[in-house]
């Protein structure tokens, strides 16, 4: 998918001025944070489980080649087909060609972030087929022609009124006679419209929450049941997943499911957790005739070999963005690509390139709340700092910042000079600010004083005051 991450600043500014968005984000933040906390309070030792999750993913990544091959063997043994895609292009081509060979007209989709990453919908539509999102949130933003703003709740930024307007415009030929105000009315209408799509789809596309090497299964987690209708009803099922989604066996998947539900929505387990293995068996009454898995690299193998391997542990629960105060202020669209929030601020530069994503690693206070809730303990602040280092090394940081820091560094490494200049400067500012105690405006501090006063220095540096104090005591 095309990235608009370079527009972060303008998008963030627009978002901050959008009262409906503020209302939606506030509601979401309080809901997600509270529910997660409640569910982990009931768990005996959630930190030990997080450590387990970290180790499971680390081990799997350290043996990824073996587990990928094991998974592939098991998929084939179950009658399925594995496709490998180096990049977005290959993934799109693979999916479109499977759809074409199936003679598909209509393709239903259950929410897949990797599908968003490679831009599957646009490719399917360009090939003359209809692609319909079936997760209610994804469906809403598909109607609105917007990308998701959250990986678990794609339409979290939309209010009920906005959704109601969308449904009025798109359903029943724009007939406006019905009430469509309350949540049940909206959900029921989407259910009825999408039920017809489910029943007439030729191909169903899902993502995968986990790929289980032991059995060649994909694990799908939803609350709506849409993924199950997506893979059960059409003739062909395509699952698309990043290569990092592997886990060794079902017990490992179980540990990670315990982490996922609690971290994402505060549920012990989502309403529907499904293990899909191969296509319809000879005596099965339902299920697709073909089962395809598309394994996507798209930069993941590169991350495996560098300082960003930790990021491949991500299980896409959304807890980091739910706990991020920057995300809560600007919402998901400001980040400009598929993955928002802290995990997105690491992933987007790695996938899209540092050059067009300069703001993302910097728009963070490194407060570490994301790390404290991450179910697999990804050191997100460290990775963001690491990206800042890469930016600096590639001279993508503004020259004023780079030279400013170096100059200040040289200065700070000469303590005598530093203390002398500091004493003079602080003395001046202390004098100027003595009566009011703060500055409303100050040359060179415009960014600070644009939103807050600058408290005035007390007038002496501690170093000079301390030396004076000691001299007095010695006498």
């Amino acid at each position, binding site marked *: 998918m095309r990235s608009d991450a370079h527009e972060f600043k303008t998008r963030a500014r627009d978002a901050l001025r959008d009262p409906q968005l503020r209302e939606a984000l506030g509601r979401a933040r309080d809901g997600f944070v509270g529910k997660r906390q409640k569910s982990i309070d009931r768990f005996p030792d959630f930190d030990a489980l997080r450590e*387990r999750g970290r180790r499971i993913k680390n*081990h799997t990544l350290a043996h990824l080649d073996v587990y990928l091959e094991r998974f592939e063997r098991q998929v084939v043994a179950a009658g399925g087909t594995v*496709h490998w895609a180096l990049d977005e292009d290959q993934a799109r081509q693979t999916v479109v060609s499977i759809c074409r060979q199936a003679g598909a007209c209509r393709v239903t989709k259950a929410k897949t972030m990797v599908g968003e990453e490679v831009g599957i919908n646009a490719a399917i539509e360009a090939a003359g087929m209809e692609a319909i999102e079936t997760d209610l949130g994804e469906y809403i933003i598909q109607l609105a022609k917007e990308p998701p703003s959250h990986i678990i709740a794609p339409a979290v930024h939309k209010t009920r009124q906005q959704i109601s307007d969308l449904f009025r415009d798109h359903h029943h030929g724009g007939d406006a006679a019905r009430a469509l105000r309350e949540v049940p009315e909206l959900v029921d209408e989407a259910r009825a419209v999408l039920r017809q799509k489910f029943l007439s789809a030729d191909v169903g596309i899902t993502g995968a929450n986990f790929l289980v090497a032991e059995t060649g299964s994909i694990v799908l987690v939803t609350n709506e049941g849409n993924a199950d209708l997506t893979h059960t009803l059409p003739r062909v099922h395509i699952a698309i997943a990043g290569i990092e989604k592997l886990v060794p066996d079902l017990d490992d998947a179980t540990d990670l499911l315990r982490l996922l539900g609690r971290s994402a929505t505060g549920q012990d*387990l989502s309403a529907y957790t499904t293990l899909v293995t191969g296509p319809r068996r000879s005596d099965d009454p339902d299920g697709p005739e073909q089962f395809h898995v598309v394994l996507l*690299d798209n930069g993941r193998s590169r991350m495996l070999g560098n300082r960003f391997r930790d990021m491949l542990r991500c299980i896409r629960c959304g807890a980091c963005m739910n706990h991020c105060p920057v995300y809560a202020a600007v919402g998901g669209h400001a980040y400009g690509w598929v993955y928002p929030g802290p995990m997105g601020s690491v992933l987007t530069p790695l996938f899209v390139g540092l050059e067009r994503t300069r703001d993302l690693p910097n728009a963070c206070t490194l407060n570490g709340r994301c790390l404290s809730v991450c179910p697999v303990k990804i050191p997100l602040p460290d990775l963001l700092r690491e990206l800042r280092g890469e930016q600096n090394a590639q001279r993508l940081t503004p020259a004023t910042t780079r030279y400013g820091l170096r100059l200040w560094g040289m200065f700070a490494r000469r303590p005598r000079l530093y203390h002398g200049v500091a004493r003079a400067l602080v003395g001046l500012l202390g004098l100027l600010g003595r009566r009011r105690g703060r500055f409303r405006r100050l040359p060179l501090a415009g960014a600070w004083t644009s939103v807050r006063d600058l408290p005035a220095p007390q007038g002496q540096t501690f170093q000079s005051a301390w030396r004076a104090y000691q001299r007095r005591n010695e006498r």
Partner: protein
Amino acid sequence: MNHAREEILRRVRRALKRDADSVVDPDTARDTAYASERAPRPTWDEKRLQRFTERFEAAAGTWCRVSGPGDISGAAVDFLHGAGLGQKLQLAAHPMLDTLRWPDQFKVACVQRADPGLSVGLSIAEAAIAETGTLVFWSGPRAPATLAFLSEVHIAVLPLEWLVDHMEDVWTLLRKRDGFPPRALNLVTGPSRTADVEQTMQLGAHGPRRLHLILVG
């Protein structure tokens, strides 16, 4: 795409500083890394059944209990009657349901694939998990996946002896069975739901609006 396969595996091995012939034993490494230790799991003081029903109810499921398989139809009729859900029902083709007797006015169809026009489906769970209040369905001729997802109301039947504590116990139990894993193994915890509109929980997003369980034994 064969090229892509080799290229991805080559890149992965290069990142892991290995070549294709390196001898790697992930299973031993896995034991050392974590698998030899028991994973932290939820624990509870109450009896298994009590834990199960408590979690099942927390997930918005309803349930009743009967003493034997012969009473399943009576319990289903009572439930449908009490909830005003009519007298039409589609059943999975499961031996446990073959010999059930239904009131004359009931239209009961034994189906291989759910008819989306009919609103109530009844099928047998293969196991259940006390930890989470979860029912486990094994897709196949005896339990069409469509029954559990296309019905407006899903009635599930669970013989009590198939209730286990944790999800791992389900794997231990089912791994031994022929044909494991089935095409779809559905772990169902309550009826379908969504919170995609303003974070408000609404039941019946795409799957059943209600999930009713008949515990047998």
